[in-house]
């Protein structure tokens, strides 16, 4: 499965909250992904990494031209809005409270785009398979209010993966979960990725999360966001706690933290244990 996303000289400016002028959030960013894998995008909060993520085939922010300058290419074609092959998972699950788990997962098939592309029998097969894969096979008839935060995020993940996207954009998806649930979700994501190898761009401000999940870790600086560091991790997943405490694990953690501080982040960085 070939896939490529390329940001060329992307500049993003927002009108300054007070008075005149503009604030440059992203300044001439060059970033490209060209194969399936889990790619972590790390930076202090408020550094514009979500904006960068939304440019990669997601819904652009309203009321401001995104990007201000520069070019976004998906499969070498210019992209200026939601892309059919890219699906985004948000920290807020956006599950419809009036629908059951199963109806929420098959929600995209209510839309004309997917109704035309996927036949009814195939839809059912896919929904069954993904509910099984995220561990909600026996919860299909429950409603979101009856689920925990982690289970709700599983629903959101299933709704994205049921479309078999080539690009999966994740915007701090596990940021609101407690530590134990976050661990479970990270393990689940790795399992799902083994089954369905797409290109994941995963935004986080959690250094440990980046090290546990990432094939590639890109560290962004803040105001304006530029690539401060970019490296690959060859250690196979699942990565054990002892690897994280090994010389290599600690060295990488140290390296990321150093880059973040050097980048002059005023925002917050989290290292969870």
């Amino acid at each position, binding site marked *: 499965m070939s896939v490529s996303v390329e940001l060329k000289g992307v500049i993003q400016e927002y009108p300054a909250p007070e008075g005149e002028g503009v604030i440059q959030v992203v300044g001439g960013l060059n970033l490209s992904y060209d194969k399936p894998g889990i790619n972590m995008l790390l930076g202090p909060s408020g550094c514009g990494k979500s904006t960068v993520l939304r440019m990669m085939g997601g819904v652009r922010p309203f009321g401001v031209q995104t990007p201000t300058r520069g070019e976004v290419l998906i499969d070498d074609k210019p992209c200026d809005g*939601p892309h059919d092959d890219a699906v985004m998972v948000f920290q807020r699950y956006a599950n419809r409270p009036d629908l059951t788990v199963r109806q929420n997962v098959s929600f995209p098939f209510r839309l004309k785009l997917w109704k035309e592309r996927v036949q009814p029998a195939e839809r059912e097969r896919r929904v069954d398979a993904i509910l099984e894969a995220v561990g909600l096979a026996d919860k299909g008839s429950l409603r979101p209010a009856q689920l925990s935060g982690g289970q709700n995020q599983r629903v959101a993940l299933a709704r994205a993966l049921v479309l078999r996207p080539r690009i999966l954009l994740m915007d701090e998806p596990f940021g609101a979960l407690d530590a134990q649930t976050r661990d479970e979700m990270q393990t689940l994501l790795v399992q799902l990725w083994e089954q369905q190898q797409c290109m994941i761009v995963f935004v986080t401000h959690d250094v440990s999360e980046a090290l546990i999940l990432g094939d590639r870790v890109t560290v962004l600086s803040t105001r304006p966001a530029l690539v401060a560091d970019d490296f690959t991790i060859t250690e196979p997943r699942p990565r054990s706690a002892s690897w994280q405490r090994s010389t290599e694990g600690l060295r990488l953690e140290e390296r990321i933290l150093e880059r973040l501080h050097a980048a002059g982040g005023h925002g917050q960085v989290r290292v969870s244990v």
Partner: protein
Amino acid sequence: MWNPYATLESRQKQALAAVTVVVVLALWSGLSLVVGPNKLPAPWSVVSAFIYLAWDADSGSSVLLEATLRSLSRILVSGMLVVSVGVPLGVLMGAAPRINAALSPLLDPFRSAPVVAVLPILIIWLGIGEASKIAFLFMGAVVYLIPMVRDAVQAVPSTYYISARDLGATPWEAIRHSVVPIAMPRIADAIIVSVSVMWTYITVAEYTSNTPGLGNILQRAQRAFAMDQVFVGLIVIIALALVTYQGMLFLKSKLYPWEIE
């Protein structure tokens, strides 16, 4: 005593409510004896007026029942009109800032306009029959409903819209499949408030002619200084308004049981 989060047993609640009713009835009875029946009829004369209005043995008919049915059907007809015009318009205004900007100048002045003063105009235009009554109830309620529906739509968190658009929904599909379903409980609240508003306007709507209706009973009783019948009319209207309110609340809780998250 001073703990807003304490829960009461339902027995205790009922007992306290019953005490209040008894106290009010006692005060009412005492006061009516002091000021006289021309100003405040005693509870028992209200009861006998109720029986008199409810059943006339000579003609074998019920003035009260006919009036109630007429008033109810007016509320029902104008209520359906209000909902079928107000909800779609409110949704369109909430979903599209341009439509909102275009229609707001039509709508906002009416909210503070004295709707009662519009009634004579409606009568000149539509005559004294049913049409002007329905139109009046419609106008009175729809100017409340539309802005509330619009606000309900705008109150839906943007995540739902963005998420649907991201999954490939057209803008209209995102409104239809993500925003409106989530706004429905608040839209239902808006409908409930508008129908309650109609019950307060029914007396005014029916004041002007001699066709049967609860407002008409009130008006005729006032002219004849029959205060006991005025009280009957008032109590029946309040009771009906309460029953419709509770009934619609119940319906809403059945339709949208997921609202409390």
